[in-house]
């Protein structure tokens, strides 16, 4: 198999890799905020439960979580939701990344000085207005570097979907590598992930620059 055919074949998985990546961000970014707010709840029971789930999601391999979400329903209820593998993959990734995002959000929210809340309260901002207008924009700026880290990790983590044979780039590459007994597909995959992250890094850099108008 020529290098060109190999690249062409693997490119067919690009769409699926992108699907995992963008859908995970789409769900995990808001879900993480909900988790962060629950984690910071004054109700000890709520914050305790959420805290426990975060430790589980961060403390066990994503691959294991992916297998559990994909095949768990089959073993537990005999239900088969694994026909379209994208669904369990996105569910597992979103929940896992939401846990990480939540802790980043929490750090960002807790780093905002108390005086910002006090000034807003005296100036008549409601709690929601204070959060949406005063706190959140400042949090976004503070957490952007940490988020860049996570997003870059996510690009590479999409390859974990090979564990459930979801045919994204890495899965296809592994299939070709097995049939051709060649290491070349892995090199192609590596170059691909590098290029993807090169773009991610640039885009996140642009976001950071846009928020640089104040310090």
């Amino acid at each position: 198999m020529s290098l060109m055919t190999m690249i062409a074949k693997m490119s067919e998985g690009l769409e699926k890799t992108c699907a995992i990546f963008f859908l995970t961000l789409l769900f995990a970014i808001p879900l993480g905020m909900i988790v962060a707010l629950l984690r910071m709840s004054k109700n000890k029971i709520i914050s305790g439960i959420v805290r426990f789930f975060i430790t589980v999601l961060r403390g066990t391999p994503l691959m294991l979580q992916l297998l559990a979400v994909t095949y768990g329903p089959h073993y537990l209820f005999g239900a088969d939701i694994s026909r379209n593998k994208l669904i369990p993959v996105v569910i597992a990734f979103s929940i896992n990344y939401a846990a990480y995002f939540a802790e980043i959000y929490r750090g960002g929210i807790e780093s905002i000085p108390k005086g910002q809340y006090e000034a807003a309260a005296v100036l008549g901002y409601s709690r929601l207005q204070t959060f949406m207008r005063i706190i959140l924009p400042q949090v976004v700026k503070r957490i952007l570097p940490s988020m860049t880290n996570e997003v870059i990790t996510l690009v590479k983590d999409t390859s974990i979907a090979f564990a459930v044979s979801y045919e994204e780039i890495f899965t296809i590459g592994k299939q070709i590598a097995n049939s051709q007994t060649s290491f070349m597909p892995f090199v192609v995959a590596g170059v691909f992930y590098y290029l993807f992250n090169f773009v991610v890094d640039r885009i996140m850099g642009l976001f950071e620059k846009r928020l640089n108008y104040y310090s």
Partner: protein
Amino acid sequence: MSKETKLDQPASAPILEVRGLQKSFGSIEVLKDISFSVTQGNVVTVIGPSGSGKSTLLRCASFLETANGGDILYDGEYALKDGVYAEKKDLNRFRTRFGMVFQNFNLFPHYSVMKNICEPPMLRGCGKEEARERAAQLLQKMGLEGKEDAYPCQLSGGQQQRVAIARALALEPEILYFDEPTSALDPELTGEVLKVIRQLAADRMTMVVVTHEMAFARAVSHRVVFMADGCIVEEGSPEQVFEDPRQDRTKQFLSNYTK
């Protein structure tokens, strides 16, 4: 009393009245039975050693801290009665009557000077044009013309504090609280902020100023309140408190400033 005077707001009622105010942080009693009032157009300065409860007093009056007992009245209406607060919507109404200037300015760093000043009135229903016009006037009064589009991080501490004063004034409060407004500033910048507060006093703005600037307190205030250990030790005209303090605790405190 003129016929126009509203019955629910007797002309004689002080803008702020505090009676028997108590506040504890855990087992530490920070305010013990504080009573004082501020009438229209008066400037009251609160002086005293660190930890005497001066700031806590302002923070209770502005609902940033929850008092444990006593009364707080605005224009004769109860915001706090026997340690029980009025309903939330009433507290929000009382919030429109006072403004607060903090030691650390607490400007919103992601907003321009203009937006810092304009957004709060606009959230209360003020039109954009009106808010901007008023902000421009206030900035001029604060000596900050041309700083509309600057961000707080581009300003000196003194300029930031003057923006904070403009931001508080934009809501047209009846009474303005200053919580050590110059404690984060060097002497040069302190001067420019005190000048602005003096100007407000000359315009008959009602103010309560917690400060360590004794010369300023003496020059600007109608009444001086000396606090120590959560109590008002002495209260009187600036001449009386500074020149002829009656309490030993006051004499001892003031002696630190006359060395």
